[in-house]
């Protein structure tokens, strides 16, 4: 029932293709870069994401670690911001909670059935672009950071102030 060896060979081939496409094409408007942390391990990537303009995240550059399973792209990868971001859809430990990184059977926060799910034709690029739009527009229906959801709903100005302050701290200014 398993063919771990060949499975990771297919996954590796796919990851190399995606990496090549990302480095040759670059991301739209230089919104992010992503690639393996070391050449000896193609299954762990690092992404640098620019905070989207006209949002409280706009001055920040955020680092996320992408961890790919051996059966990628049949199964999705995991994405974790390090350090964590204060955002309704990011767990306090930095893990990103977004429907596109979950398969239809996997429903940690009871996403609506109609939400977009992982499929093998998704890609690192498509997921990161979805995460960037999630930064700009949180999805309060499927929250991962309950305190943050509450604050966003009840006092959006304070939420934005906290986000901006944490970015300034991270940048050390």
């Amino acid at each position, binding site marked *: 029932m398993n*063919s771990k060896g060949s499975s990771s060979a297919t996954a590796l081939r796919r990851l190399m293709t995606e990496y090549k496409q990302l480095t040759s094409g670059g991301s739209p408007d230089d919104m992010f870069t992503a690639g393996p942390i070391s050449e000896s391990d193609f299954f762990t990537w690092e992404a640098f994401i620019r905070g989207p303009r006209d949002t409280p995240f706009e001055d920040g550059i955020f680092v996320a670690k992408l961890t790919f399973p051996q*059966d990628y792209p049949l199964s999705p990868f995991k994405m974790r911001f390090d350090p964590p971001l204060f955002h309704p859809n990011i767990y306090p430990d930095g893990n990103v909670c977004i429907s596109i990184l979950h398969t239809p059977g996997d429903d940690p926060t009871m996403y609506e059935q*109609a939400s977009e799910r992982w*499929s093998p034709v998704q890609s690192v690029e498509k997921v990161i672009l979805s995460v960037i739009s999630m930064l700009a527009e949180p999805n309060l229906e499927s929250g991962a950071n309950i305190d943050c959801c509450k604050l966003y709903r009840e006092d959006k100005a304070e939420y934005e102030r906290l986000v901006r302050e944490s970015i300034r701290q991270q940048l050390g200014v």
Partner: protein
Amino acid sequence: MNDEVSRSSKPPTRLRNAALPEVEEAQSSSVLLGGVSTSDGIDTYDGAHRSQFYELGQKLLEESMDPDQLLIAPATSMHELRGEYTGAPSFVAQIDSLMNQGYTQIVRTKGDGNCFYRALAYAHLSSLIDSPNLVFSAKAVIESGSRMMEYNYMDADIISTFCEPLMELVDAIGSSDPSKRLTRDRLLSAFLDQETSNYIITYLRLLTTAQIQSASDDYAGFLFNDSGDQMLPGEFCRQYVDPLGREADHVQVAALCRALKLHVKIAYLDGHSRDGQVHFQEITSPGDGKIKPLILLYRPGHYDVLIKTN
């Protein structure tokens, strides 16, 4: 799309959604819907009561959620299935009627949301093993399917990655080297291998998407989300076709059979007949010639493969 669904002049409906606006005739829709949702008269059938249908549905659900269930199981006798329905006379009568027609074995697939794709792929390759003279045209159909995917802006690398495992099996059917030739046992072990099996399913899903997008005028009127809102073809495919584990409804079934130019008959085992009559839904495609139909067994929410022995 109506010409593909020969039994009925009404448009195909999605199998699992009772709220669809186009479900108008209770009589024909209850057949199409396999008893999942149109509850008209359920209590009157053969003394089977709502609770009993509920129980059977639950049983099927539990069975399908079993993580230890094989992706696909070797053929077993229909007697075994019959044994699971004792206490549901309307189902037993239908199973008896199928056995009397020569459908004596069943190849069961895992209820993981991919069962239609897995059952269809297995039935298709299995019938090619019986008729190796059709391998050449089956390959041509798959190749043109890959081109259709490219026209729909799918990445050529991605297409070929997912196409390879399927093509390898098809090629092995016609192999002149007996040690490489595909036998039923080898087909079964290929389908038990998680990666091979799921790559083939992914390919069929992408092919279904390409078919829906290339003939979007034919399908546009039938693409709805779970709340019954109409969706654009691209959006529908991203959400209801591409992801592994998303069940196939009528649109996906019709589109994939068309893309693969298959002749398929689906037996509805739904307990909705007093006298054990089993309704077969027949799907024909313009290019399917006179090939023997593939036979699937549909129980509400699940597909398996039926085998006819004479």
